[in-house]
C-alpha cells in the first residue's frame, strides 16, 4: 500500500529547456505533420514565437529530470504495476522552443478502491517559464494495480 504520509510530498523542481530538435522528434513520434510543429518559420508565420510544444509535451519535464522516477521510488511504486489513470492540463501560455520551464509538483491525494486492488496517487503541478509567468497547471492520477 502507498503510505498516506506521502500526501503533501513535494517533488524536486524540474527544469526543462524546450529545444527545436526535441520538439521535431516529438512531432515525428506522434505523426504530427503540420509545419508549425516542425519548422520555426512556419510557426512564426502562424503567430508563435517559435515551434510550439504540442499540448501534452510538458509531461516530459519530470520524466527527463528524474523527478518521476524518484517519486515512484519513494512511494515504492514498481513500474510493472503502474498505470496512468487520468491527466489534465490547464493552459495559460503556449510554450515554444527557446522557453525554459520549471515544474513544481505536490502529491495532493492518495486513496484506494476495490478493497486495495487499485491504489491512486494524485499529483498537482504548476509550470512557470523563464519570466516566472504561469504557463500551465497539470494534474496526474497514477494508478497502481495489485
Amino acid at each position, binding site marked *: 500500500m502507498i503510505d498516506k504520509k506521502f500526501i503533501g510530498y513535494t517533488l524536486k523542481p524540474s527544469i526543462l529547456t524546450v529545444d527545436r530538435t526535441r520538439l521535431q522528434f516529438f512531432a515525428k513520434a506522434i505523426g504530427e505533420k503540420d509545419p508549425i510543429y516542425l519548422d520555426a518559420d512556419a510557426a512564426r508565420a502562424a503567430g508563435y514565437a517559435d515551434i510550439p510544444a504540442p*499540448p*501534452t509535451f510538458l509531461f516530459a519535464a519530470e520524466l527527463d529530470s528524474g523527478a518521476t522516477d524518484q517519486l515512484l521510488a519513494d512511494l515504492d511504486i514498481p513500474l510493472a504495476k503502474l498505470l496512468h489513470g487520468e491527466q489534465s492540463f490547464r493552459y495559460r501560455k503556449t510554450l515554444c522552443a527557446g522557453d525554459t520551464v520549471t515544474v513544481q509538483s505536490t502529491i495532493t491525494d492518495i486513496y484506494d478502491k476495490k478493497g486495495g486492488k487499485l491504489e491512486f496517487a494524485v499529483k498537482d503541478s504548476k509550470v512557470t517559464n523563464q519570466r516566472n509567468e504561469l504557463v500551465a497547471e497539470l494534474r496526474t492520477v497514477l494508478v497502481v494495480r495489485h
Partner: protein
Amino acid sequence: MTASIQVGDRLPTLQLPPVDRTTLALFGGASGDHNPIHIDTDFARRSGMPDVFAQGMLGMAWLGRLLTQWVPQSRIRQYDARFAGITHLGNAMTCSGEVVELLELDGEACARVALTSANQYGQNKIVGEAIVALA
C-alpha cells in the same frame, strides 16, 4: 469555420495507423517515458502483460492532434483525459470529438468538446474533454 462553432459540431476525425513497436520506441524516447513496459516485451511479460502496450500519453498526444488540426493550439484552455483501457499493439485508434456546450470561462467565450479515442473494435481507450476559446 471555428468562428461559428455550434453545439453538436463534430471535429474532423483523426485516424491513426495500427500501434506498432517502432511507434512505442520513438514515443518513449521523444516523451521521456523510458518505462520498459512499453518497449521491452520481456519486461512486459514478466509484469503479467501479454506484450508491450502504448503509453497513455501517446494516445493523449494523438487526441491533442485532433484538437490542433481543428483550432490553433493557442486557443486550447483546458485538456483532460481519462485512460479507460490499455491500447494494445495492432489497435488502430480513431480520435473524434464533438462540441457539447458553449460556455464562458474566466470571461471568455469558449466551447466544451467531448473527446474519445476508440480502437477498430469500438472500444474507448481514452475519454476526455477540452475547453477551447471561440476566438
